[in-house]
């Protein structure tokens, strides 16, 4: 794309400025992850898959910033982020364990434009999420649901145990069911009677869930770095176009 066209596109966007967000609701998703539902006056809207920067300010003026994927659909007026506690983290334990409704924090965005999907982009769609990497993929699924889209969509979600599986109840009821297939794999421990996958995402699980490479699915992979590295490599080896593989990694120090 020519430089001038990019600059024109950029200057037509709303500036990415800090806004004060108020916590409307906290939802305990798992023992170590919580969703914050936020009211953000003046929010310019987002695309599913984008993220926000959150800034906290201590009483002495010390500030800390972190990035979190947006989990809510663009069609929902409130903004939701799901935060996983990083052991010994600086910000995530505060957001998961301390914050309560009525609290305020600063937020800016939306940020990122590559790891995004709109119904208009079409499918088929392959979503592969590890741990809280499910959050931006959930935004895509909620967007699909809000728009009543029946685009062929496959989700392969990986969690350590059933207790760590994010959004599981909602995923079971999320419509339209036409064209939507949700598969879980549990890597550490399975409950009695578990009929999903067990163990890490591998070539067999991907082949069972994913549309064939010939169907040219748009692939979105999000999770911890080793998870994303492994899944993206498997997809390339299975014959998927590297350019169709969108990756979002968060590192061990995401905190």
């Amino acid at each position, binding site marked *: *794309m*020519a*430089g001038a066209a*990019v*600059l024109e*596109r*950029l200057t037509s*966007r709303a*500036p*990415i*400025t*800090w806004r*004060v967000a108020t916590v409307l609701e906290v939802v305990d998703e798992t023992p170590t992850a919580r969703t914050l539902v936020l009211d953000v006056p003046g929010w310019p809207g987002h695309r599913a898959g984008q993220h926000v*920067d959150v*800034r*906290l*300010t*201590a*009483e002495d003026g*010390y*500030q*800390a*910033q*972190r*990035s979190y994927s947006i989990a809510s659909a663009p069609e929902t007026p409130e903004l939701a982020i799901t935060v996983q506690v990083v052991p010994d983290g*600086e910000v995530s334990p*505060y957001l998961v364990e*301390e914050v309560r409704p009525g*609290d*305020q*924090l*600063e937020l800016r965005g939306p*940020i*990122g*434009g*590559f*790891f995004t999907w709109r119904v208009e982009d079409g499918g088929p769609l392959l979503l592969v999420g590890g741990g809280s990497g499910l959050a931006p993929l959930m935004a895509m699924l909620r967007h699909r649901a809000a728009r009543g889209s029946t685009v062929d969509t496959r989700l392969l979600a990986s969690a350590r145990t059933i207790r760590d599986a994010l959004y599981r109840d909602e995923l079971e009821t999320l419509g339209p069911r036409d064209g939507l297939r949700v598969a879980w794999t549990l890597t550490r421990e399975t409950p009695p009677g578990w009929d999903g996958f067990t163990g890490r995402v591998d070539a067999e699980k991907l082949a069972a869930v994913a549309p064939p490479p010939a169907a040219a699915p748009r692939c979105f992979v999000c999770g911890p*770095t080793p998870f994303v*590295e492994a899944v*993206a*490599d498997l*997809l*390339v080896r299975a014959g998927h176009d*590297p*350019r169709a*593989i*969108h*990756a979002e*990694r*968060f*590192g*061990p*120090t*995401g*905190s």
Partner: protein
Amino acid sequence: MPPISRGFRGRRHADVDPARIPPGQYLTTDFPVLSAGPTPRTPLDRWTFSIDGEIDEVRRWTWDELLALPQETVTVDIHCVTKWSKLDTEWTGVSLDTLLDGVETEAEHVVAWCDGGYTTNLPLEDVMGGRAWIAHTYGGEPLEPEHGGPARLLVPHLYFWKSAKWVRGITLTIEDRPGFWEGYGYHNYGDPWREQRYWSD
């Protein structure tokens, strides 16, 4: 005044000079990975580094030719736009000054291009004057593919997305051409000390 985050104390690093941490950054001792797609893997016998664009004749080096050039080892602090900073990282590679030596050009900008299709733009002067390298060794070991190996651009005075992984060449350009993240709303220049994260900063 920003709202006070009730009960938030944060964590300061008493053992680190705060003057080394740009605004909005936090210190990490890990080496997080950020890339938009799969990690490309190019065999070294097919690897080359090129300088093209506004230059009379394209310059190109094979892997062995690059390693035969004068090597520099530098210890620098790096700052990722996703908020982490890592101090005293040690890299070995070839200075862009060496690669650009004697080049006459009208260009004022460069676009770095990479395996996997990634690009990023920088002012030409920012990759000269001992401020940019093609780095192939990190902490005394060959640079891991997930961190950009076999070789990445290293421009530590800018946010780390400018230090393009899997770099294969730079194109000298007259006009400024926003690269991959710059086209998605990240800052065109990306100075961490002025907290130039996004285009409107």
